[in-house]
């Protein structure tokens, strides 16, 4: 019999529907994989019973002919999504023990579509980080190892590193991620899986703990493009509780999948050829271009002239919004309260926030507070907003010449844990290719493109026009079919 944990979302859905196996068998197999994979520290909370209850409901639904789109599919939920009755911490000590009395719109949609929950996935604290090392509950370890015979522990990427590790290590067929500046795409690239950040506004932000409101978008992470399309369909849709939610119907992305790119133009932005980019990344990019041509697309070189300002712009806007969004964690109503003897209100705030937030979170709150301060606001925040508008215009112009853009997802393969944790700027550089499309609110996905010489996965990024998730998914599918990426980490855990 097939190893059930090798199956993806579509396989499980179809197998349960066909009666090839029961949803309970699937949930049981993944629950066991979760338990067996604890060395990866990918899960903050395990919810095997939740997965089983949903599985039994799926099996009953099959018997009565009431199957839902995700019946029988167990998923991992990033700990940024509030889950009713299940501890939700955003991997921060600030929210340790916080059990939301409500379900986020996105996780609620998945559960309503029949999915079960295997547990809550570890992540960078408040989604701030690119390596998972900022989690208050220990970093996630990537299931991947270099082929150099060494045993160096690698970063699973971040902030959705629990999600990438869980999917890559076959502990879940799919998972939710969130992406503010690359937090779905970079970890997907680091672990050889697929992940898509949809157009800003496709997925409701309601009930998802905020990092930077104008950038945060939920999206799926899964083994392949089809699975991403299925999950994204279930996660998307208008939500009156989020004022920035797009009031548009959700397209049938899975049905619309096609790897035939005839008549499509694929743009290659010259500014993404950054200094010091490893030759392997350049080679991967060229390989991706060849795949696109093979799929029938025309390749055009395009220019996104403000690309080099994207990273500094992002690291002004995101911390500015974060500094305000995280002000609610003050010890007054929920979460951590540190009240030293005789402390007054100000002292309680100071003690609580000093204890509750990790170093990276504090760094970004400080940066954000600074750029919003009187006397600095115009020089930093206002300027950054203007540059953001220019970056949006860059993309608009490029999309008059092409239908999608092809770039590498990250400037390197997964790095070792601890290699960059002392150098925030080096860490921030990881987002160099993912941040511009975040600032522009565009759909973008990462698909595995191949392995580097150390045997580590590398990802290719496709960026599409606003609302053209279909174009992005189709280009991703064209790469997937040609790359034939089947590598997976050897099970050492």
């Amino acid at each position: 019999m097939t190893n059930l944990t090798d199956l993806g979302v579509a396989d499980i859905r179809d197998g349960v529907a066909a009666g090839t196996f029961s949803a309970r068998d699937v949930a049981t197999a993944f629950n066991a994989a979760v338990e067996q994979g604890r060395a990866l520290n990918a899960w903050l909370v395990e919810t095997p019973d939740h997965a089983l209850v949903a599985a039994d409901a799926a099996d009953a639904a099959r018997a009565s002919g009431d199957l839902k789109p995700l019946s029988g599919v167990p998923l991992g939920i990033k700990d940024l999504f509030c889950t009713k009755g299940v501890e939700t911490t955003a991997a921060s000590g600030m929210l340790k023990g916080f059990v939301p009395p409500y379900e986020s719109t996105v996780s609620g949609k998945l559960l309503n579509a029949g999915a079960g929950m295997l547990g809550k996935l570890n992540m960078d604290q408040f989604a701030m980080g690119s390596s998972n090392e900022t989690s208050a509950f220990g970093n996630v370890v990537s299931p991947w190892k270099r082929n150099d015979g060494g045993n160096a522990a690698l970063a699973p990427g971040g902030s959705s590193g629990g999600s990438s590790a869980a999917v890559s290590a076959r502990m879940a067929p799919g998972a939710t991620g969130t992406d503010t500046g690359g937090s779905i795409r970079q970890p997907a690239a680091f672990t050889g899986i697929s992940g898509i950040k949809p157009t800003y506004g496709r997925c409701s932000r309601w009930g998802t703990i905020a990092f930077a409101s104008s950038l945060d978008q939920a999206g799926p992470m899964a083994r392949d493009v089809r699975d991403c399309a299925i999950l994204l369909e279930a996660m998307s849709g208008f939500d009156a509780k989020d004022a920035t939610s797009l009031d548009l119907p959700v397209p049938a992305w899975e049905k619309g999948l096609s790897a035939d790119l005839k008549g499509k133009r694929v743009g290659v932005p010259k500014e993404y050829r950054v200094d010091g980019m490893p030759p392997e990344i350049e080679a991967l990019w060229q390989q991706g271009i060849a795949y696109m041509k093979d799929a029938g697309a025309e390749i055009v070189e395009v220019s996104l002239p403000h690309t080099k300002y994207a990273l500094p712009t992002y690291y002004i806007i995101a911390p500015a919004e974060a500094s305000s969004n995280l002000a609610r964690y003050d010890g007054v109503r929920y979460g951590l309260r540190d009240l030293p003897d005789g402390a007054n209100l100000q002292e309680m705030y100071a003690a609580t926030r000093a204890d509750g937030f990790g170093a990276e979170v504090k760094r970004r709150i400080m940066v954000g507070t600074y750029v919003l301060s009187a006397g600095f606001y115009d020089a930093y925040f206002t300027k950054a907003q203007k540059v953001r508008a220019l970056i949006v215009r860059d993309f608009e112009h490029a999309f008059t010449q092409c239908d999608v853009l092809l770039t590498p997802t990250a400037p390197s393969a997964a790095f070792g844990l601890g290699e960059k944790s002392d150098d925030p700027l080096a860490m921030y550089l990881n987002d160099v290719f993912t941040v511009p499309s975040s600032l522009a609110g565009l759909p973008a996905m990462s698909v595995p493109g191949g392995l580097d010489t150390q045997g580590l996965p590398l990802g290719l990024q496709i960026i599409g026009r606003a609302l053209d998730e279909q174009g992005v998914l189709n280009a991703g599918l064209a790469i997937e079919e040609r790359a034939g990426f089947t590598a997976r980490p050897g099970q050492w855990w």
Partner: protein
Amino acid sequence: MTDSPYRIQGATGEWEVVIGLEVHAQITSQSKLFSGAATAFGAEPNSQVSLVDAAMPGMLPVPNGECIRQAVRTGLALDAQINRWSRFDRKNYFYADLPQGYQISQLYHPLVGEGSLLIEPEDAAPKTIGIERIHVEQDAGKLMHDQHPTRSYVDLNRSGVALMEIVSRPDMRSPAEAGAYVKKLRSILRYVGSCDGNMEQGSMRADVNVSVRKPGGELGTRTETKNVNSVRFVMAAIEHEAKRQVAVIEDGGTIIQETRLFDPDKGVTRSMRSKEDAHDYRYFPDPDLLPLELDEAFLADALASLPELPDAKRARYEGELGLSAYNADVLTADVETARWFEAMLAEGAPAKAGANWLISELFGALNRLGKTIGESPVSPRQAAELVALVGDGTLSGSLAKQVFELMLETGQDAGVIVEERGLKQTSDTGAIEAEIARVIAANPDKVADYKGGKDKLFGFFVGQTMRAMGGKANPGVVNDLLKKALE
């Protein structure tokens, strides 16, 4: 614009006071500005708090269209520019009554721009006060320090309630002008129905900006006295603050720009915090909210929904109804009064007589009873009937007073009281002449005095006759017959 003559007499001469007001008015709405929680006053603490109001993780604000509509209607009533495009900003600061750690407000692009308000202070010329802007924002919760010896409690019922901040230009020059401004603004808000104007419940309060200068000179440094919650206190705070500033300057000191509080018990203002330790609020556009864009249909609906406003109504009362300026003013100052009066007219009461009766009789009675016009025990229909009974001669003025008292006591209609108690005025000359004859016969000395030139005794004979008639005689008939009898 005429400068009012209000001056502070200092040791170095006269000082002029410059006043601007920021009025915070709670928008009348069923639910809060960005959440579905209720807004009723006086509910149990923390019983009207949504997940959004408590700033739970992942919660998002969604604008309440009704609050926006009410603020737009208010702007239209103040002849103000309505901005088709406006935006919400976050004002960041930490306090236990502010769950989000920021207040959602509008600093950079307010909903309403420049407008104006005509005030008519007592004993001074009318004056137009400029409105600089109106923006909408969230209220904070409330801290309660009296519940526990060492702890403070937080009530979030008000957290997220919609406020309009109506900012005037520094156009006022006396406490009387400021008082007239607050009264007129409250009157308009009540007409529009966008705020109930209850200052004692905190649904309207004023931040008072005051500076002093030599008449016509350079503007002085201003102070801001926060949260003053009655017209009287606004006037008292200005008077005290202006005198304090003059004293400081004349003693060689300088005024520091600071926030002050008014102590209503002592009638003084006190320093709260100075600019040096003022917050840096780090305003920036709220990324959870899209800009507010208003279309023409929305604005047209808002405009069409406006009622006749006090100035227009007063002009109509004078022009069309022929009321005196005083009566028109009194009847239109408060929307409840105007509504009551118009309900009387709709029940057939003649305008002039109805206005006089309402202002003298009804107001007098309500005053005695300590009730508002909304709580009047007599309805406009009953009032109209009473006025009509005077108009057709059924009741004399004094009989009408008696009947009105009985109406207040019993709640019965005037006609019923007149019938049941036989209080109808009589013009039966035979009966009246008979009583007059008896009065004259019983008072021969007074008759002699009257005929000897003591004209004032005529009133005595009227009174005696009316009393003998049980108050029901038509006073005009009594007068005529008495004159004849005493000739």
